[in-house]
Structures are given as C-alpha cells and as structure tokens.
C-alpha cells in the first residue's frame, strides 16, 4: 500500500481524494474595504453617494481644468526645446530627444480629455505614435513634430475646448496635410514591365486541389 493510500485509509478519504491534483487554489478574503467604508456600521445609511462629496470632486476638477492650459504651455515649451536640440543634434542625441518628445506626447495624450481638451489628446496621441521607439528621425520628422507643436499651441492659445467644432476640424486637417507633406512616400514597387532584366522563367507551383 502506498503512503497516499495509507493516509487515505487513515483519514477515511477515498482513493480519488488522496490522489487528487490541485490545480487551482482559491482565497476568499474578508471584505476589508467594505468594513472600512462603513456599510453596516451603526449610523451609516445605505443611501446614494453623498452628493456633496461628488460636488466637491467636480469643483476640484474644474479648478484643475482652469490651470491645465498653463501646464500644456509649459510642456509645449519643453517640446520646442527638444525639437531645437534634435534639429541641432544627430544620431544619438536626436534619438534621445525623440524619446523625450514621445514621452511628453504620451502625457499630453493622457490628460487632454480629462481636462476638457480632447484635441490635445488627439494631437498628443498622433505625436506619440510618430515618435515612438521605431520612428524615423529624419529632418522630415522634425517638421512633423513642429506641426504638432503648432496645432497644440493654437488649441491652447484660443482655449479650444471640446472637439473645437469647425476650428477643431480645420486644425486636424492642417496637421494631416503637414504629415502627408513631410512623409516620404515609399518608392513604387517595380512592376514586371519596369524590370530591366526580363524574367526568363516563371516557376509555377502546382496548386493544391
């Protein structure tokens, strides 16, 4: 008799119980948060969340929104400094600056919507994607970065909150045009006719039936 079987016999378990393999272990913890949050505590009602707490939070949010343009302005200055250094620098320095630009753009992207400036999020996202680790760092890309800084400056200067309506759409179009203008189109793929060396033989693979 194996040890497992002996144990099973001693504890009255069946053979299957003794040999069972536990794949998942579960932990069901006491709901400490609920205890701390006071539900069930004497004197704490089960009503809707205190309106005044929400009001207070909303007014804090409003205050942050009022200060937000100043923060963006400071970030745009930082971006412009990075752009200048990237323009003057080459290779490693330029790559380093692009990484910083990308990080700043990521922050702008994450915050714009929270503060009522979704256009900053849109432009931040675009800049973040165009300057990520795999991005090219040619002079054309510097122009693209500049175009992003310009449209974001316009948003903050004119306090274009929300989607900005016609002005917002125009800014998006301006940026799109700038990106297209400075994006180097990939060389056209050579066609069979443009190939100087004619293909002498074509290998045809048998098709599977």
């Amino acid at each position: 008799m194996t040890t497992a079987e002996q144990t099973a016999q001693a504890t009255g378990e069946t053979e299957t119980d003794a040999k069972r393999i536990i794949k998942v272990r579960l932990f069901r913890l006491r709901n400490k948060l609920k205890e701390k949050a006071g539900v069930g505590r004497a004197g704490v009602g089960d009503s809707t969340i205190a309106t005044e707490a929400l009001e207070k939070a909303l007014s804090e949010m409003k205050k942050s929104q009022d200060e937000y343009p100043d923060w963006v302005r400071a970030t745009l200055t930082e971006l412009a400094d990075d752009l200048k250094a990237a323009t003057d620098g080459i290779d490693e320095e330029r790559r380093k600056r692009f990484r910083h630009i990308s990080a700043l753009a990521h922050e702008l992207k994450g915050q714009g919507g929270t503060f009522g400036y979704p256009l900053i999020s849109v432009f931040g996202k675009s800049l973040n994607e165009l300057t990520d680790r795999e991005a090219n760092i040619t002079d054309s890309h510097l122009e693209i970065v500049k175009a992003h800084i310009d449209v974001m400056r316009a948003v903050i200067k004119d306090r274009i909150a929300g989607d900005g309506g016609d002005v917002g759409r125009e800014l998006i179009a301006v940026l799109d045009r700038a990106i297209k203008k400075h994006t180097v189109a990939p060389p056209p793929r050579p066609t069979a006719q443009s190939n100087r060396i004619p293909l002498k033989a074509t290998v045809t693979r048998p098709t599977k039936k």
Partner: protein
Amino acid sequence: MANYSFDMFNVLVVEDNRYMRSMLRTLLYAIGVGNVLTTSDGGEAIELLRKIKEAPAAAGVSSIDIIFSNWQMEPVDGTMLLKWVRRSKESPDRFVPFIMVSGFADFQRVSVCRDLGVTEFLAKPYSVDSLLGRLTGLVERPRQFVLTENYFGPDRRRRPSPQALERRVMKESEMEIIYDDR
C-alpha cells in the same frame, strides 16, 4: 450606489507626472479618501511598501488599502510594480487592490495587466465618475484570489458563465479553497 465613507482608506498613488499626481490626489481627497500617499515611480513605491511592512510606525501608515499606479514610468513602471506587489515575499499585502492607470487601453495591454493580477484598469482620460466607479467597484464587488501554476491575482472571470461556454472546465476536485474568511 451605497453611501460609502472612504475616510479610513489609505491610498497609494504612483504617478511620475507631477501634475497628474497632484490631480489624482486632490480628486481622491475630494471624494472623501482619508489618506493619500504619493510616489513618483514604481521603485519609490516599492521602497515605501517595504518600509510599511518592516516599520509601519516609521512609515506613518499601517497598511495600504488601494494602489493606483500609472503604467508608463521610469525606471520602474506600473507592470513591474504590480509584479512585485503580487509576487514578492517582501510585499506587505499581495492581495491589495491594484488599479492600473494608463493612456493605452487597447485589448493587448489590458490583457497584459490582467495576467499580472491587476484588479482594475482605469483609462486616461478619466472622469470623476469613472474614478468613483472603480472605487465603489472594489468595495462592492471584491473578487476571490486565484493561485495556479502560472497566475496569481484576482479571479479573471468576473461572473459565473454557463458551463457550456467555458473553455476550461475545472473539476471540483482540482480546486481547493485555501482561505475563506468571508
């Protein structure tokens, strides 16, 4: 939604951006959270959590109830912090609710966090309502923790699904409740 009072909560905010850090702290205080601690990256957070475990009196707080962490930070980002919190023996509470905050909310990234044992995901930009929603969700719908060969964290299945739709059907004999204090 019940009328909760968060005044006894100790919340840790881990965010590298000074502005966002201050805003999240202000918002948490505004909705009634009693104590908000902040650090500016995952490494600092780990130092603080270690200190809380070793010398809570010196750290000024006995435990952390919820962690809000940004994802992208340097040198120690949100996923590294989450891994440490859930897996390190030095972690003061491997079951602590962990909310990952990120501007990247695509399925792939959310999945990564989910598999590391995140409790909730909060996408930037967020609103007061979504912040409150996460907080009350933690209070009202805590999930059991699951330990398998390659996962430790809150149960990734939030609600029971019909057996027929389950990809992995677990036999009862393969599960064991290690701890039950509910």
